[in-house]
């Protein structure tokens, strides 16, 4: 590490009253891999987006190669040698590796825009050889594994002169062999003086590959450490802070001993390992882990959305077969999916439709719908869910995020589910709506509904849940009773640390 290639000084950014970044100082030495860690919402992506010109800072200074600069937009960032490699790939599957690398930057002859393909394949080959990796530049990207795709994406950034790479959760979905190869390549890049910001929830990766690590919490830089001189405990503590551990919410009932749901050796498509657990009457069971730990996959499997591969589900003492969401529903399961817009709602249709679609049988008179009882069912549910405004004919897309989420939950509560599975139910909604949803969940559990809360918000799990299971890469890492559940412990376990 010679001088700093980048210095961000006293960066402030405010989004509608929320201080996303609060006087953040951040520096990068040339040729280092610098980890950026923090919980969801800590400000990592805001910082990255300022650096790539997606957002403009409110105040502060960016010094690039010793010169104060302003990054106007993503194109400007690229021109200044800053490239972001996001989780979602920007490659075009149906084109060859070489075509992707030179996309938008094709070598053409002078007079006619013929693409000089020979030259392109030759240059792409050189470019890839520099990483010591054998990828045929003529191969279609769709034929490559995830690890190699990531490398092609990096190669693409480097051909247009990137000196500073932002890697956002680069190993998501990669196998451990792919990760090893990937690490070899980024070490190679480091030796060629490429500087990298490494954003990851996987702290073991940070310890393995990074030189320094900065922790963001609530928009502040909580400190930058040499990786060699820091341990997991220190990092976890600075991620969650000292005074912020959640206060467990009061419950009016205690979970009984009566097991209502028993899952034995259950494995569905996209799950890594079979999982077993029990859920008791009146209980809220948290299933937590970092993003990608396999919570949603479990939820989708239990609800019959993805195909069951092995194991048994027992509900109220009887084995049930769940081979579709419809059969799960008939067994009184309900599922609130992670992405309310694409999986939960009919955005273009009225709130009434959204609230009654799954329980429409309740408003049938013989074979016919009763418009009146349908309206009443929607209105009663909306009132219970405190959906604002109480306009049942409004399209769901016009509701705020929190009210949309209440509508998705209301879709099930217009009936009477026995098991309610919620996947990230408070993501992206305001504090007030969060409170209301927690109250609702607890109210349901008090009435005897078994609640399964899938969440990567550790604080949420520690305040709401009676018991928590921590997943790592699809298998159970630990199970904690209520008195043992704390944000710090959950986070430490989820990040692969010891208890």
């Amino acid at each position, binding site marked *: 590490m010679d001088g700093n290639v980048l210095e961000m000084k006293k960066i402030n950014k405010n989004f509608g009253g929320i201080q996303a970044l609060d006087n953040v100082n951040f520096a990068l030495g040339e040729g280092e891999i610098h980890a950026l860690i923090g919980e969801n919402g800590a400000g990592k992506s805001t910082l990255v987006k300022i650096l790539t010109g997606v957002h403009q800072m409110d105040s502060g200074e960016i010094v690039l190669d010793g010169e104060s600069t302003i990054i106007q937009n993503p194109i400007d960032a690229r021109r200044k040698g800053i490239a972001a490699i996001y989780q979602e790939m920007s490659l075009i599957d149906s084109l060859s590796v070489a075509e992707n690398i030179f996309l938008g930057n094709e070598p053409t002859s002078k007079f006619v825009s013929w693409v000089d393909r020979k030259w392109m394949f030759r240059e792409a080959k050189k470019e890839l050889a520099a990483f010591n990796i054998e990828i045929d530049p003529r191969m279609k990207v769709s034929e490559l594994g995830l690890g190699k795709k990531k490398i092609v994406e990096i190669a693409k950034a480097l051909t247009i002169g990137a000196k500073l790479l932002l890697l956002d959760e680069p190993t998501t979905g990669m196998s451990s062999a792919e990760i090893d190869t990937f690490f070899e390549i980024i070490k190679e890049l480091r030796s060629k003086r490429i500087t990298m910001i490494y954003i990851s929830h996987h702290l073991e990766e940070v310890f393995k590959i990074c030189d320094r690590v900065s922790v963001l919490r609530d928009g502040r830089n909580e400190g930058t450490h040499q990786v060699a001189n820091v341990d997991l405990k220190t990092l976890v503590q600075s991620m969650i802070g000292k005074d912020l551990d959640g206060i467990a919410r009061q419950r009016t009932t205690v979970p009984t001993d009566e097991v209502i749901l028993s899952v034995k050796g259950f494995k569905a498509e996209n799950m890594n390992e079979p999982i077993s657990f029990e859920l008791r009457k009146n209980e809220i069971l948290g299933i937590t882990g970092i993003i990608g730990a396999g919570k949603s996959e479990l939820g989708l499997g239990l*609800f019959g*959305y993805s195909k069951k591969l092995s194991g048994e589900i027992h509900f109220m003492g009887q084995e049930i077969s769940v081979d579709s969401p419809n059969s*799960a529903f008939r067994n009184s399961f309900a599922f609130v999916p992670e992405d309310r817009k*694409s999986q*939960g*709602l*009919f955005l273009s249709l009225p709130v009434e439709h959204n609230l009654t679609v799954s329980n429409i049988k309740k408003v049938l008179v013989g074979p016919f719908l009763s418009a009146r009882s349908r309206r009443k069912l929607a209105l009663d549910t909306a009132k219970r869910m405190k959906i604002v405004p109480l306009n049942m004919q409004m399209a769901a897309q016009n509701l705020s995020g929190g009210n949309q989420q209440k509508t998705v939950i209301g*879709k099930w509560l217009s009936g009477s589910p026995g098991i309610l599975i919620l996947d990230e139910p408070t993501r992206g909604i305001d504090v007030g709506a969060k409170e209301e949803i927690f109250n609702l969940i607890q109210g349901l559990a008090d009435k005897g509904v078994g609640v399964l809360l899938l969440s990567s918000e550790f604080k949420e799990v520690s305040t709401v849940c009676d018991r928590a299971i921590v997943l790592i890469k699809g298998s159970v890492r630990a199970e904690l009773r209520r008195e043992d559940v704390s944000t710090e412990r959950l986070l430490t376990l989820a990040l692969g640390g010891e208890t």
Partner: protein
Amino acid sequence: MNKDLTAKTSSPNSLMKSIKKLLKSEIGLLIVLVALIVVFSILSPYFLGSRNLLNITRQFSVTLIVAIGMTFVILSGEIDLSVGSIAALVGVATAIVINATGIILVGILAGLGIGLLVGLINGIITVFGKIQSFIVTLAMLGIARGVALVWTGGRPVSRLPEGFGTLGAGYLGPIPVSTLVAAGVFVLAYMVLNKTKHGTYFQSIGANREAAKLSAISVSKYRIMAFAASGVMSGLGGVLIASRLLSGQPTAAQGMELNVIAAVILGGASLSGGVGTVVGTLLGTAVIGVIDNGMNLMGVSSFFQQIVKGVIILLAVLARRSD
């Protein structure tokens, strides 16, 4: 409420918005229909005669029946290009079975059964083969027509009993029988889509298939049912055509799919799914039927008619654009 409305329409900008909103609703289409009727009755003295008006309903009854089947498909976010070929195949099959058994009802039921079967095949391949319905039904457009041609050697199947002609050409009092059949189909489809849970399900699937599945709807079953409905309705259309001509023509109903899709889209349905009503489809079919008939009465050449129809469809859809 009323006060609110007048306040909103006071400025020219919001007046435009109100007009646009009106055009988007079925009432807008009704206004277009009435305007067309007024224009044609001024231009042609014969147009408004009750005989001619009933004649129009007879002419468009086949299109309406097939378009109602198509409404189920488009509402679910799919398309069926094979309707014309199914109609021809069913017409041929009905004629052959009637000739073979001598019983009209058996022939009709066999024909409708074949329509149902082809529709089911369309649906099953689309759903379980995970292929776009555009492609599946494009292939079926060729296959069904080809089967009809091969089966008959390309020749019409005629010498059908006179009684069979009642369905397509007969009258009950002043009203054409085929109009009554179409009216029956309309009422049935209206009930299914608006008064039963099935309509809610079709619409949900078209609006967001993923969410529909996660709302515990049997998405595969309903998608297949939409194609089955379209198959049966195309078959019924084919039976009516065969009945009117008193022969099963393997070349009947060529290009029908385009007219039918145009009627459904004109009726306000969206090709991306989730939007569409049978009332809209009825009005869409009527608009096209009135234009056809009116221009025929005025002696407009059929070449020119096609241009006019195309322009009207474009204008109607432009006026209803959602942004």
